[in-house]
């Protein structure tokens, strides 16, 4: 095609990157306003959506458009004026695409926050500048730490209601950062904002010139998204075996999957688990194109030197760096189902592409998120509870510590009778900092 100087040809623009992030905030912290402003000021709310909101607001007798109606999509949510469930929203700037897991802030929806955080690379924790760090803030920080969300933004909102004072912001930022760092959150950025007036959300504030950092959007646009995952222990859960058996490809036998961590190269010596057999990568197909190297999270097909017995559920890893397999798993879990999880419960455990039978052997403790105190041997976990569990699996699993790999260190428990997703699990130690923040129990700190 002919080249022109017109800037309008978007197909010629360089592709942008994708950031998945989640929001967390209490009911009145202004989360809807922040989300509304991000969507609105990045021009992601289109005329017909705004008109629909105006129509609905007027129909309810409200004076102005209620921006919460943009995000509350279900009948029940609109009727009750609360957000029930995680919703996913999409917006873009010329620099990046965003997937926002918009999670309800209410205490009883811990599971929704965990769901949103499980795929997020960044969490925005909202705080009301008038109230500072409260119980709910600590809960949000703890979930971000538990789920190993790499970046946390503390958005100190309603700065207009505290006279835009730097000292108020500084005190909250310091208290939160100290707490989050203690939990092992690797990266905290604090930003003073007024979501209502638009200060430091998309546009820099005209009234808080003492603040020299990025706006929320600017930070979202520039925060690193790959953070060295490609350098982790390489892991490849086999999803599906591709065997065309056609005249054109009589001998093709490829192992399809999405690289869960690290990098694979042609020529790598690899071990297949759980069998423990070793072979060499002879080829990598990137959706039909042969490549020499591939990395997480690419979906590829590996070709191997030897015809081993490999099927869905197996794990391919570099021979010198293969994980240990075990039938005993200790993990921190968040219980997400309404029916409780109890000691002795027989469940299914899905790890990577493998689903195995398992039994809950012990529940050593339950965590109170607000103050990180432990309740020893609760015997059972109810919906939204977070606790430690010991699980025995029917077959050995090559599980990594969640701290090393969010993909191969995570699992879900499933009720074999009706298929309900019961529990989200994270293998190994929980928080990076092993020091108890508050511990009155004799058992001491085991998170």
């Amino acid at each position: 095609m002919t080249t022109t100087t017109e800037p309008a040809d978007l197909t010629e623009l360089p592709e942008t990157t994708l950031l998945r992030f989640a929001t967390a905030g209490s009911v009145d912290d202004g989360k809807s306003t922040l989300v509304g402003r991000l969507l609105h000021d990045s021009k992601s709310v289109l005329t017909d959506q705004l008109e629909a909101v105006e129509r609905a607001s007027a129909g309810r007798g409200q004076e102005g458009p209620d921006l919460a109606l943009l995000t509350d999509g279900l009948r029940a949510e609109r009727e009750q004026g609360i957000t029930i469930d995680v919703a996913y929203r999409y917006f873009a700037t010329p620099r990046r695409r965003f997937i926002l897991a918009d999670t309800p802030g209410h205490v009883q929806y811990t599971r929704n926050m965990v769901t949103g955080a499980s795929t997020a690379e960044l969490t925005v924790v909202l705080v009301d500048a008038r109230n500072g760090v409260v119980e709910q803030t600590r809960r949000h920080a703890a979930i971000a730490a538990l789920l190993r969300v790499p970046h946390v933004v503390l958005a100190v909102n309603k700065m207009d209601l505290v006279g835009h004072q730097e000292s108020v912001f500084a005190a909250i930022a310091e208290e939160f950062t100290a707490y989050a760092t203690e939990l092992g959150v690797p990266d905290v950025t604090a930003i003073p904002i007024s979501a209502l007036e638009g200060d430091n959300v998309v546009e820099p504030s005209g009234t808080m010139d003492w603040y020299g950092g990025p706006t929320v959007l600017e930070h979202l646009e520039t925060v690193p998204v790959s953070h060295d995952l490609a350098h982790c222990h390489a892991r490849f859960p086999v999803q599906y075996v591709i065997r065309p058996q056609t005249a054109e490809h009589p001998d093709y036998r490829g192992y399809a999957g999405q690289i869960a961590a690290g990098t694979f190269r042609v020529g790598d010596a690899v071990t297949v688990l759980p069998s423990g057999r070793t072979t060499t990568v002879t080829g990598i197909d990137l959706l039909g194109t042969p490549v020499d190297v591939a990395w997480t999270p690419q979906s590829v097909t590996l070709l191997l030197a030897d015809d081993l017995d490999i099927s869905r559920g197996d794990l391919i890893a570099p021979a010198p760096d293969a994980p240990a397999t075990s039938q005993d798993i200790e993990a921190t879990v968040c219980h997400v189902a309404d029916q409780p999880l109890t000691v002795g419960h027989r469940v299914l455990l899905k790890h990577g592409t493998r689903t195995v039978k398992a039994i809950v052997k012990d529940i050593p403790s339950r965590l109170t998120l607000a103050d990180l105190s432990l309740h020893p041997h609760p015997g059972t976990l109810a919906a939204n509870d977070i606790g430690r569990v010991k699980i025995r699996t029917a077959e050995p699993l090559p599980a990594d510590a969640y701290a090393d790999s969010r993909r191969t260190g995570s699992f879900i428990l499933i009720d074999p009778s009706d298929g309900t997703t019961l529990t989200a699990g994270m293998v190994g130690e929980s928080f990076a900092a092993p020091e108890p923040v508050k511990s009155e129990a004799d058992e001491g700190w085991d998170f």
Partner: protein
Amino acid sequence: MTTVASVTEETDSPYALSHLDALESEAVHIFREVAGEFERPVILFSGGKDSILMLHLALKAFTPAPVPFSLLHVDTGHNFPEVLAYRDRAVERHRLRLHVASVQDYIDRGVLKERPDGTRNPLQIVPLTEKIQSERFDAVFGGGRRDEEKARAKERVFSLRDEFSQWDPRRQRPELWNLYNGRHAPGEHVRVFPLSNWTELDVWQYIARERIELPQIYFAHEREVFARNGMWLTAGEWGGPKGGETVQKRQVRYRTVGDMSCTGAVDSDADTIEKVITEIAASRLTERGATRADDKLSEAAMEDRKREGYF
């Protein structure tokens, strides 16, 4: 400056995937999960751009082997002829098996009644759900995207439907990491949405990048249309124009492809993919807001249809 431990590092890691590569990889993962865990999956194929994109991704996911799924078209009887021709070419070229659930059959047998407004979109639910039951499909891929509509923003990638194909948004399984749960009882099935995280612009950028062929009605062309409910509808035997409505020739294109009775065309001179992308990027209307009459019926029209088994 008071920020603590702030990050200023730029994001040009050699390992960062472009947004299109990331979305492609995720969609392929979803197709392969279904192939690995289900007995009888099927792809809902309307001949529209989203289902064409799904088929393209499925072809890539299993190359060089054939796609291990068949296609299912819910034929409203009011289809654009160009789209039906495209459908048949795609089936032929990729040697796929095509199932058709026909709304017209149901009307002819007296099982379904034509609505007074002539819209056949809601009539698709019964033929679709009965076909799923009779063919015992256990996974049904749909091209729905969460950016399309506020009820769809709440949809899971793997969405369990009961034996009546009903969706209950308050009883959805939480979806954690990329560990999709496909468990279902006999008679139940799972709707699978591999394009959940794509936006309309992503779809068009990817179509441009991969040079995917589309039916010509997506590009600006002269067409005989008439105005109804603020939209340009194609004149035809399906039921338009009626008294008071007059046909005129306009330069238009379609942003979505659906039943002729409720899918409107937009005025456009975008006759190439590049021009279409530029037009969408500048548009102040959403895809469905611009071209779908059925979503304007009530505030929760999509949620209500989805609850009954719509895709």
